[in-house]
């Protein structure tokens, strides 16, 4: 019974996490943006360039909300531009999840 409840709870958490996830076609666009346009500064494999590495190891200790905030708002005084005009909050959040997991090859 306890196990069953725990599983239910887990399922609930997973669905919330996925609630705002972008549709498949949009996901492909976001991944393209990540590799190509973010890659222009962070490196095509996101190992870092003018901007720091966005690989899972580099982001592991960082808060997902703060990372999506940086993506949407940029960071003043640095070349990191705000992407809020091109990405919704849910999309930025999904992006951060992908980054933390590591992009599919």
């Amino acid at each position, binding site marked *: 019974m306890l196990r069953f409840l725990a599983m239910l709870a887990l399922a609930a958490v997973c669905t919330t996490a996925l609630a705002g996830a972008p549709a498949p076609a949009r996901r492909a666009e976001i991944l393209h943006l990540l590799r190509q346009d973010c890659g222009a500064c962070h490196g095509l494999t996101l*190992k*870092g360039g003018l901007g720091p590495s966005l690989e899972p190891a580099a982001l592991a200790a960082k808060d997902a909300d703060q990372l999506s905030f940086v993506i949407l708002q940029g960071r003043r005084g640095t070349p990191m531009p705000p992407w809020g005009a091109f990405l919704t909050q849910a999309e930025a959040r999904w992006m951060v999840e992908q980054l933390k997991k590591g992009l599919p090859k």
Partner: protein
Amino acid sequence: MRFPVIAALLLGIAACATPPPRGTGDLGLVIERAAGRVMLIETSGRSSLGHIEGLGDLSHASAVFSRDGRYAYVFGRDGGLTKLDLLRARIERRVIQAGNSIGGAISQDGRLVAVANYVPGGIRIFDAQTLEPLSVVPTGAKVVGIADAPGNRFVFSLFETGEIWIVDASDPRRPQVRKIVGVGKQPYDGFITPNGRHYIAGLFGEDGLALVDLWAPQAGARRILDGYGRGEEPLPVYKMPHLRGWAVAGRYIFLPAVGRHEVLVLDSVTWTEAGRIAVHGQPVFAVAQPGARRVWVNFAFPRNDVVQVIDVAAMRVVKELRPGRAVLHMEFTPRGEQVWVSSRDDGAVLVYDTATYAELARLPAQSPSGIFLTSRGAMTGF
């Protein structure tokens, strides 16, 4: 019976595989950055001669050429330095020289290749023939805008510390460094004028550029086009502009304004602003067509599907082209009759006639970015 036929066929193929001698003056390469390979091209027949694979991470990759136009040195993001033999269409040598590199330069005498690195910050100098490492100049900051200067010198800027360094590599194992400090906030790229005299760094953190006269480096750097933004808030920059000696069209130098939909025109006699031209988006490259009559401009995300052409005499945009999605680079043949343009998201390299703007050829390519022709091998600052 079948065997000899096959053997004869194979022999025939082997005989065909020995190519007739040819020059390299019309050769070049296109970086196919997603595939980690380059496409070899020739501009006489405007065709692809095949691919060279196995070059690693080629985001932001660039290339320089040996003085005989036979070899290309490709600088990859993963720190890879690859020497290609264009005539044999193969990798001649390859070394992984640092964690993260941004570009490089070849010395005036062609004997040295310098690679500029982000991590660990600094430049590394290699023997151009063997790729044997000769020396390291650590900088403690990201190196941007490296260019070769007369006297086997390399000049570059440091992003975090706002410095321009001049490295004399006449004795390549003991390079001599002259540092010019306080040139301005966050230099993002730099270039040397085609005559090899002036080095100019663009600043990201301030409205202006830093100018060094290499005939009098002891005088330091001076600020030019100071406050060109006139105090207005710059737009967000989704792609850093690129600077190189191609910006020079006669007396004028055409420069991308950072965070503005403008090309700035700098008078290279008085070093003052000679005008500014409103354009379609934030310029990434402003490249003078050989002959200096026109300047071609491409743009940053999200306005990157357009190329505009500025007439230098009229100082205004006279033509707009739509080569495809995500136009990343433009390269002219040495006499300027053709321009090669890469469209990353359409997976194509397009060739235009610069007199009529007619599309002459369209070659399929995988995420093409930079296009580099061997004529760079004969130019200072390339």
